[in-house]
């Protein structure tokens, strides 16, 4: 009715616009949060560079700059692009394609500006990028009784991370099986075994994230033989030795 700006109207407009903006921001923020939860899914074959923090911490720390990718002399690392099953822009490698060469000076780690790759990692043997698991025992040539041994031979921590364990071959009944066996206390998860596996397409031995590869003993479990060593003797006292029957020589004892 008048030309004067009406204070009630302008206040109302301000409140309306603010409400719209706050509402919009909330909806967008919620959307980003939910989408983020979805988008943080990491394919199990995508391995993080050496020294990477645990995945949740890594996603808080990595600014997706690609400096680790540039520092890698072997083109092992790449940044995930939108649409890949890896959080967009974060570095990863696929062991079957290009494994980590385990450089002694670990150039990718000091290159990380934020510490998403932990600068405290100075010995590459301490890296834990994943854990190798001989996942297909039906196709592994050593399990079939052959001496392929390739995964064992290429392992940079040979005889510690992978050993060949000798077993009786029940099929031929006169040969040995030498079974590649991974030891989690030494495996760095570099993926050289997975890359080298001679089988076509997928490898019989695969590097998996620790969360997938490893089980955890229940807190209350105790190993009797370890407890015995620790205590310097049996914890439950001397046992009654019962005679074992049925092992007598055929035909009975004289």
């Amino acid at each position, binding site marked *: 009715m008048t030309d004067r700006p009406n204070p009630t109207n302008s206040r109302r407009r301000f409140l309306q616009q603010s409400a*719209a903006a706050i509402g919009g*921001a909330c909806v967008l923020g919620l959307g*980003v949060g939910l989408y983020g939860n979805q988008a943080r899914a990491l394919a199990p074959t995508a391995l993080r560079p050496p020294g990477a923090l645990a995945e949740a911490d890594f996603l*808080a720390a990595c*600014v*997706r700059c690609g400096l680790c990718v540039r520092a890698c002399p072997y083109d092992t690392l790449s940044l995930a692009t939108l649409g890949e099953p890896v959080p967009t*822009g974060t570095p990863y490698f696929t062991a079957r394609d290009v494994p980590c060469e385990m450089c002694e000076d670990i150039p990718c780690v000091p290159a990380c*500006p934020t510490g998403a790759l932990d600068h405290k990692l100075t010995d590459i043997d301490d890296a834990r990028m994943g854990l190798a698991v001989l996942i297909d025992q039906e196709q592994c040539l050593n399990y079939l009784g052959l001496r392929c041994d390739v995964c064992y031979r290429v392992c940079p921590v040979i005889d510690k991370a992978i050993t060949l364990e000798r077993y009786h071959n029940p099929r031929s009944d006169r040969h040995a099986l030498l079974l590649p066996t991974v030891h989690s206390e030494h495996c760095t998860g570099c993926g050289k075994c997975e890359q080298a596996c001679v089988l076509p397409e997928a490898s019989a031995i695969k590097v998996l994230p620790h969360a997938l590869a490893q089980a955890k003993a229940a807190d209350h479990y105790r190993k009797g033989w370890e407890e015995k060593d620790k205590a310097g003797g049996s914890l439950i006292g001397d046992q009654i030795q019962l005679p074992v029957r049925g092992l007598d020589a055929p035909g009975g004892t004289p």
Partner: protein
Amino acid sequence: MNQTVQAPRKSVAGRNPTAAARETKGWLGANRFLLLRRASQLGFLGLFLIGPISLWLARNNHLQQAWWPVKGTLASSVTLDSLPLTDPYMLLQAMLAGHLPATAALTGAVIVLLFYLLLGGRLYCAWFCPINPVTDAAGWLRRKLKIKTAQPPPESLRRWLLLATLVVSLVTGGIAWEWVNPISMLHRALIFGAGAAWGVVAAVFLYDLLFAARGWCGHVCPVGAFYGLLGKFALLRVAAPRRRACDDCMDCFKVCPEPQVIRPALKAVGQDHPLILSSDCTTCGRCVDVCSQDVFRLTTRFNRSES
């Protein structure tokens, strides 16, 4: 003929906002800041691209050795293997997400913070951001095609969204805006290879073209809002010292990416001096370009003189 163009109070609806300036200052004079800005954007991107391109040339035996003046992306980079630079907004989200960054990132973020605090926060938007040419192109095409749409979302949305990204980072423990950020997606796509990032860039272009005039940079983008907050004390400012010569042609309002910042300085609304002090101003200098009356100047925040 050019008399009619300069006549005051001419109908301004639908006219090309650079036409009048071209008549008086020539094509170069009417596009000086625009050309400088495009050169800055290209050169800035080029610095990041020299490394990857030289690496490609070296691999194909066209070069002896790759040369890396700048490694990394806008998120974090190393210049000449010594100067670290990090995006402070991204690092702030990382810290809220629960990560204490290493010294390189902190040093880099402080350098970037000081630069924009000193010179003007949204200088980033107009002179360095790779999305700016995309939204500028959408704005230009929008003017050419005379696309009119409903009101864009409120201008304050970006600041609320800035707050929301910080809260989401805090709650989810991830760098929230990086799930969406078309700036880093485009920059990374150009330097490391694309993937589906083009889709996000195309979405921003179409949003600005079809849904909201200057919608992304002026209303949505929290990165711009963050740098805007840094610009409260910026030294570099645009002013309207010759505002008495203004002939109300509205050309500056048409090209300005944040048209609300002009009025206080040009028409002395709520202030006496002719300085554009709003931190929304991106210091792009396009108003300096298109003004046929030479009303605007790029100057410092201490220069309140009028002529």
